[in-house]
């Protein structure tokens, strides 16, 4: 089984706008040289998620790492439910589904380990490494 770590984007790293002809993070589809001022929309937490992401990929290349928006229920809900339901039943799976949508969450095979702020980049890598070793052992 592939070991998968999902990092949930920070809440302020907002990038989805629904609706045709207005949706998406379309500023990237419009602006040529990023000249428009989007500083009010920048969030330092996304740099931390990026750091965690890059370290995980660098130090644990066999682990599949994904970054997902908290609002991407079409992916998060079924993925987390399937992963947890097998081991811990429906109620626990539903609770885990809800917890998984916490911005900044770190999910290891569907289970929430914590969030990137509390764990920090080093903490996430250490925890994931420990879990991987557990599976291998």
């Amino acid at each position, binding site marked *: 089984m592939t070991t998968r770590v999902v990092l949930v984007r920070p*809440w*302020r*790293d*907002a*990038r*989805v*706008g*629904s*609706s*045709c*002809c*207005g*949706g*998406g*993070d*379309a*500023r*990237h*589809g*419009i*602006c*040529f*040289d*990023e*000249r*428009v*001022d989007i500083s*009010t*929309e920048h*969030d330092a937490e*996304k*740099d931390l*998620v*990026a*750091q*965690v*992401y*890059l370290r995980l990929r660098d130090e644990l290349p066999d682990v*599949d790492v*994904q*970054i*997902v*928006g*908290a*609002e*991407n*229920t*079409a*992916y998060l*809900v079924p993925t987390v439910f399937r992963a947890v339901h097998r081991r811990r039943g429906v109620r626990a799976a539903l609770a885990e*589904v*809800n*917890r*998984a*949508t*916490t*911005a*900044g969450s770190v999910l290891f095979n569907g289970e929430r380990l914590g*969030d990137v*702020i509390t764990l920090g980049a080093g903490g996430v890598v250490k925890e994931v490494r420990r879990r991987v070793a557990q599976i291998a052992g």
Partner: protein
Amino acid sequence: MPAIVVAAVVGVLFFLGYRYYSAYLANRIYALDPAFVTPAHQLTDGVDYVPTNKHVVFGHHFTSVAGAAPIVGPAIAVFWGWGPALAWIVLGTIFAAGVHDFGSLAVSLRHRARNIGSIAHDVISTRARTLFLLIIFFLLTLVNAVFAVVIGNLFVANPGAVIPIVVEIPIAIFIGQYIYKTRSAALVPSLVGVALLYALIWVGQQYPVDIAPLSEAIGIDNPRNLWVILLFAYTFVASRLPVWMLLQPRDYINSHQLFIALGVIGLGMLVGWNQIVAPVVNDVPADSPSIFPFLFITIACGAISGFHSLVSSGTTAKQIDKETDARYVGYMGAVGEGSLATGAVLAATAGVVASRADWDALYPDFNTASGGAVGNFVNGVAVFANNLLIPLDLAVIFAAVVVISFAATTMDTGVRLQRYIVQEIAEVAGWHRLARNLTWASLVAVAVPLAMALIPGGGDAGYTFGVLWRLFGTTNQLTAGLALTVVAVWVLRMKRNPLPAVVPLVFLLAMTTWALFIQFWDFVEAEGRSERFVLAPLDGIIFVLALWLIVEAAMALRKGAARREYDDMGSPLDADVDTGEARQ
């Protein structure tokens, strides 16, 4: 014929389109290579460039492109009969939108995930960048104008929807703050937000808000116009807020609503076994716009939407893990939008009324069809909901709330994007103070579409809306034309068959220029001052942009046949062609 059977047939056709035609495009035309190192891998930064599972990318991509626009056009276009409307949606989705959305993504992947405007600058000409900005400026102007009119009309027709929609704003802000400050899970609060919204439907029904007396008291004859002014005042403020504060939590609530609405439409259709009562081909009055070319600009989103190229090339391309994933994400995005449009056709032909005579009363002429289209969709969905034992009067408000929520989100983001465009154009023109002043840029972004929504507002509501909608359709098709030109030139320079892109390109440009030409003379010969002095010049400008695009496309294709700037797999041979790294 039962609506659910038609939906099933369309589903099968879309499946075949994905299974065979998109495979042909992937293997023979775009030459996708599973070993190609995508920009997400080349430039991984964990922020924008992130190799991502294709289902995750599709989730983001689809919510970015699905919304109210593919509902409105089809609900108007059934005026010509459900057969032509559905045929254009199915053929357009399979052979035009699929090629366009998938192609924009594929070409962007080979250009370091740069956006279609930047790539057009390189593969078409330096002028193409200005052309791109102008087309998008008019596209967003008309998007914001038509959706303001849509919401205004729905508020006037469904005063019970006002309270839920207005109160949704503070609910969304509260949820956003709550999730951010408490670092709590987002799912349950957002579901509570949906539940509150639906509870407010009952409140709205008890306390409908009619602003006609206020409108009259302040000297605005049409209450819709007062709503339009209030909506633009709101979007001016909303577009200045960070995305996470209002737009994101409201979108989150809307994403649940999308699933609920799709479930209600599908299940309600199945349970009620509603029959399509509209004619396959309608015998329209002699003075109606002709099916050629107007059907093909009335249904833009749902058959092909140029806006998708902005999402595909600017954002989605940065997250594609394997190049071969582009087929699933790009083509299926188009299929998803086509499915929404099919739902709109069925709601407006099977849901809304029970007999042919009733349907004829709703679609007696083009202006009535245009003015009533969104209302017909709302009432159609309400009938499907009623099949599931939801009381009809509540179901109508529910459906209106869903449509208004999507339209309002489109306006929120549309005005924000328009501000970016104003800033970009100001930079290109050298007006640096405007480019860097958010307040002035936002004012321009609001004032131009506000004027568009109000200037022809004195006339018949259906006429006003129909005119704005058709102008919007032309600019959306021109955006698609620009993206298809880029795709065609790229394919040609790879020495592959450009016809899958050239055929829809030629068709779209022919329909668009033809429609613009007819409309121009209609406006010039009209008696109203707004037609002669506002709509005719606007139509003329868009017509010139269309001709400009045709010339650029022809020159680029001619040049493309002679030059070879890409290897067999579509990557630029000359490093100068690909300067994306510096730009991004």
